[in-house]
Structure formats: C-alpha cells, structure tokens
C-alpha cells in the first residue's frame, strides 16, 4: 500500500515541480517581452501555459492510483507487496518523463517566446514546435494510465 501511495505522490509532486519550474522559466521570458510589447500578452500566455500540462498529467495518474486503491471514498482495497510495486512502477513513466519533459519543453517555450517577440505572426509555429516536446509526456501519461488501470486486484 505504502509503495503504491509513494508512486502516486511522486507522480503528482515531481511532474508538478517540473511544470512549476517550466512555467516559471517561460513566464520570466514572457514577462520581459510583455514589458516591451503589451499587445502580445495573449499569445505569450498560451506559450507560457504549455509546460504546465505535465503537472496535470501527474495529477491525473495520482488520482487514478488513489481511485483504484479505493482511498477516495469507499473501502480501501488491501493489496499485496507485489501489487504495491506494480503500482509504483506504473507511476514511473509520468514521474520521470513528466518532470524532465516539462523542463525541456519550457526551454523550447522560451525560444518560441523570443521568436514571437521578434515576429508576432510566427507564434503559431512556435506553439507547434513547443507542443512537439509534449508528445512524449502524453505517451508517458498514456502508458502510466494503461498500466494503472491494467493491474489486477
């Protein structure tokens, strides 16, 4: 049980931290640009928000683990140590990829913000490039979800 909860907590905490740091990094760059060009605020806000999704993915996996363990309302399910390990490992993809990809994505996001500062019409291209990084976080999320849902109890 403890192991499974550690996994859930790690999913929420680490990918949340990664996202927080990513949004911070992108936000700092965006704030600098907005001070010169306030009109770009809307476009930049989108770019800043992009590294924020990993935190949500981690949160989702954490909640799914808690739901499966019956910790959110209802009776808690008794699980064996082996099952605990299974939940722990199932959380790992989003823990690791969520944390790192949020940080990597924010670096791309900063570059896209700089690009938008110079060429506001290119923000769509910048957005696409930034989203490419997120693909892998989505794949990790998917794998984590499928594993969490697939563990037999």
């Amino acid at each position, binding site marked *: 049980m403890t192991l499974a909860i550690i996994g859930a907590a790690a999913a929420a905490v680490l990918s949340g931290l990664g996202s927080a740091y990513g949004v911070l990094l992108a936000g700092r760059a965006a704030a600098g640009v907005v001070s010169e060009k306030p009109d770009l605020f*809307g476009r930049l806000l*989108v770019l800043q*928000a*992009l590294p924020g*999704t990993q935190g*949500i*993915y981690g*949160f*989702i996996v954490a*909640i*799914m683990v808690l739901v499966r363990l019956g910790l*959110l*309302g209802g009776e808690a399910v008794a699980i064996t140590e082996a099952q605990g390990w299974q939940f722990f490992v199932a959380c790992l993809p989003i823990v690791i990829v969520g944390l790192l990809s949020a940080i990597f994505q924010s670096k791309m996001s900063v570059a896209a913000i700089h690009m938008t500062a110079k060429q506001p019409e290119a*923000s*769509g*291209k910048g*957005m*696409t490039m930034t*989203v*490419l990084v*997120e*693909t892998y976080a*989505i*794949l990790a*999320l*998917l794998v984590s*979800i*499928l594993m969490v*849902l697939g563990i037999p109890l």
Partner: protein
Amino acid sequence: MIVSMKKAKIVALKEEKEKLLSELQKSGLVMLIPTETETVLIDVSKNDDVIERTKKSLSFLEKYQEKKDSILAKTEVEYDDFFTYDQEKMDLLIKLEELEEKIALTHEENSALLEELDFYRPWLKLDVKLKDLTSSKYTDLFVGYVNSKDEEQFLESLDALGCDYKLYGLDKDKRAIIFASYYQDKEKIDLLNKEYQFNELKFEDDGLVKDIVKRLEKQIVTNNLYIDEASKKLTKLTKDKEKLYILSDQAATDKELKLAPALDTLEAVYLEGWIRSDKEDVLKEVLEKAVSCYDLVLLDPEEGEDPPTCNKNNKFVTPFESVTNMFEVPNYREVDPNPMMSIWFWFIFGMMMGDVGYGVVMLIGGILFLKIYKPKGMLKQIGKIIAYSSITTVLFGVLYGSYFGFELFKPLFVNPVEDPLTVLIFSFGVGLLHIVSGLVVKMYASFKAKDYSGAILDDFSWIVLLLGLGVLLAGILYVPSLVKIGGIMMAVAVGVIILFGGRRKKGFIRKLTGGFTSLYGLVNHMSDVLSYSRLLALGLSTAIIGLVMNMLAGMVQGSVIGIIISVIIYIVGHLFNIAMGLLSAYVHDSRLQYIEFFGKFYEGGGYEFKPLSVKLKHVDAIKYKEEKI
C-alpha cells in the same frame, strides 16, 4: 477555395493621384505591389506623432471618466466626419495635452510646497523675524538641529559653558534648537558642535514662521482648487473622446495612404496591384467615379509571379482559416486545405473535450464572447471555432456518457475511463482516416496539376494501402471476415508501390530499389497514426479532472455550508477544467493538423491578401452614406 487574382495596372493623371488613392483605399479592393524602383523615404513622422499623442491622451483621459464605457459601447462615426480633416480635433488634442501638463506641474509644485512646509513646521513657535536671528558683538547665535538622542548631553554641555538656549519642535528624530554663546567660547562651541553633529541652519526667507506657514498652506489650497477644476474640465472632455478616436484612426489611414507605392512620372501616376478577379467591375466603377480619365489593364498572373492568397469559403470553414494561417498561409497555386481541415479540426476538438455540459458552456460562452466583447481578427475566429466545436463536444459527451463529469445516461459508445483501450483503438482509426484524407487532398492536387500517374500510382495506392491496413486490423480485432479483404488491399497496394515507386529514378537498379525505399514511408505513416493516442489521453484528462472535481464537491456536502462550498467547487473546478481543456484541445488539435495532416500534401509559403484599406483601430465602423461597395 482560393480566389483567382488579376494584376491591375492603373494609369491616371498625376494631379488626381491623391483622390485616386484615397478612393481605392476606401473601396479596399487593391493590394498594391511595391514598386521596384528606389522609393524615396516618405516622411510619416507627423502621423506617428499624432497616433502616439492620441494614445497617451486617451489613456490619461481614462482616469477622469466618471463611469466606464459599457462593453457594448460601439463607436460608429459618420462618413463625412471620418474623411474630413479639420483643425477642431487637433485643437482638442492640444487642449488636453496642455491641461495634462498643467495638472502635472501643479502636482509637482504642491509636493515642493509640502516639503517646505515640513521644513518650517518645527520652528512654528519662533516669534522672531527670521532675518533678526543674527549674532551680536559679544554673542554668537546658532540655529539648527541636534539628534534627539544626544539632546540631554548637548544641553548639559551648553549649560556648562553658560550658554542660553531655547528648544523648538521635533523634525523626525531631530530637535530644533537655538542657542547663544559668548563670543570668546567660539572654539569650544565649534568642537562641541562637531562632537554632537550639530546641524546648522540658515533661513532664506524673512518674516515670522507663522506667516510663512500660512502663506504656504494657502498656496496649496489654491493649487488643489485648480486641480479639481481642471479635473472637472477633463471629465467633461471625456465626452469628446470619440474625436480622438477618429483623429488617431485618421492619422493611421493617412499614413497608409502616404506609404502606398505609386510610380510618378512627369504628368501621370502609375499603380500596380492585385485584385480579386470577381471584383473587376467594382474596381472599374470606383475608378470611374474617382478620376476623370484613367487607363486600366487587367492581366492574369504569369508563371513566376507570386500573387497573394485570398480564401473564400463558407461560414463554417472561414474561422478555421485562422488555424491554417497561424501555421503558414497557403500559396496561391495550391489546393485550399481549409475545407477538409475545418471538418477534422471540428471533429477532433470535440473528441478531446467530450462532455455534454462542457459543450453547452462552450456554446453559451462562445456566443456571449462574440456578442458582448465583439472581438476582431484572430480572437473572433477562435470564438467562432469554440462555438462551432461545442456541437462535436456535445456529440462525444453523449457517446462517452459524460455530463459535467457525471454519467447521467449510459454512454452510447463507451466510457473512456472504464475502457480506455477501445477508445485508443478508435483514436488510431480516426488518425488513419485523417491521414488518408490528407492523401486524398494530395491526389486531388495531383489530378489538378495533370500528374495522373502520380495521382494513381503514388497517392491512390498509398490510400488503398493504409485503408487496407485499417481493415486488416479491424478484422483481427473484431470481424474476422475482414482480414482477407484487408490483406488483399494491402498486397495489391504494396505491389504497385514496389513496382512503380522508383519509376522516376534513373537507372534500373535505382528504379528497383526506389520502390522498396518508398515503401519505407509506411513507417512514417504508422508513427503519425500513433500520435493520435493523444486523442485518448486528452479526452481522459478532461474526463478525470471532471470526475475529481465532482468527488471533491461530493466530500464536503452534508451541511448547508458544505453544500454552498460544494457548489463553488463545482463551478470553479469545472470552469478550470474547461479552460485547461480548451487550451490543450486547441493546441494539440492544431498540431495534429500541422504535422500529421498538412505533412501529407501542404506546401504553404503564400501571403495573405491585404488590400489598401481604411485603418480602423479605435473606431468600430463608419456609416457609409451610399451602399458600401
């Protein structure tokens, strides 16, 4: 559909140049082509100056407006009012600027006065005229401050020297003090002053401190009265704000006109520009009215020329053009990707949101946003996309059985949280069809370019191959009888691709290997299809956050306060989820279009058709006297 363009060459008399250009600008028909000859630098600093100044004055004026403009407010101006340049609006601007400066100066003066007042306040009880504070033959007189913590010791020292002193008020932590000493003690006193950091003071003014303070206070009151009066004047002037709006937009419009590229000869003026081929007659009418004589030649675009792209689509497709244009504007000669793209964007958007309640919120929110906020440009299109996509969102909500995260009715299709695998396979299916539709557009383009062999041997055989793969997998998973059909489709397609894939390469060996290497494209297509797993992932994330919000709200229910809190959680939680969902749906939907779909056929590299037109930023609309052309 991409509208066909014609190149218009217009020659008119030079003396009518301004009239011609201004009429063309009002009609908004022609996108002028910059002349190749060296352009003289045109001075538009006056226009920029006016634009900048009105912007400053407007933001200044905002502070004095009594009530805010309602969001419904719309500035509509009369035609004549917009196109007559009178001094009145400029005078208003100058008047505003003068008032602004005077108010600023008065504020500055007041703060200086207040500082002076602070300076005199400790000395208020001094009943000697300031100029009379002088040393006499046998005594030295000192006026100044000493730190209040040293006060006692300082006074003791003064007592010891037999000085006479008088204490006054405090200025922060300093005591105002006047003392007189015997002139022979000067050296000792100097030492003492140094030790206690006595801060000696010289008054500049004369008269009693009381009177000075009174004078200063009176001046401040007068200044405040002036500021009040000026503020009232400004508040009155806010009603004339519209004039500033017009002035600013006039300056911008005039700037555009001045920058319009035109070639002057001795007697004539020559313009070259693109117009929509369906607007030829309108252009002729405009020219007829604008100038007494002109010459107009219309030509079809030649090879190597690069006309602008003007999309003309129905009401549904138009907002989605903004998605394409954010990536790249289609070039003039290619097939317009928007009709096909719009349907997919709309469909996929709904799939990612997938909740009946959210769809309803999107519809209401989108319509309110469009009606009340009246956005222009990009935002308007996004508002429309959200409103349109509410339909597919509701549709998928019903299929997934999700109503604000609750399962009110049994899902028509499947609940993605309970059975994600089915939805994953469905997502791949959607992806496969999306990619195939991209290839269909490519095939259509090949036909249009009269590349028949390419259309059939390359594009069509790939379509068959991918569809065959889909059928085969569907057969393996669900209906065994389909396996054979899929297998045959794939085999035929693979055969064609291997046989003809290398036909454009030179040399026998290259032709042979070319077929196999082009078959390698299958790997790319497959990885593209896998990318559609995000349809499941994002749909799941919206669904699960919705569930969590409902669960949180359910936990606190139980008492009256609990129910109130739970309502707040419902509202805030679901709004948050909708906002995040919209952001990721928009972003990831765009990405699927750009990379997976456009990658199959799209060229891009065009530029938008932006005709010479009236520049409106503050003014929302001009009332035209006659029917707008």
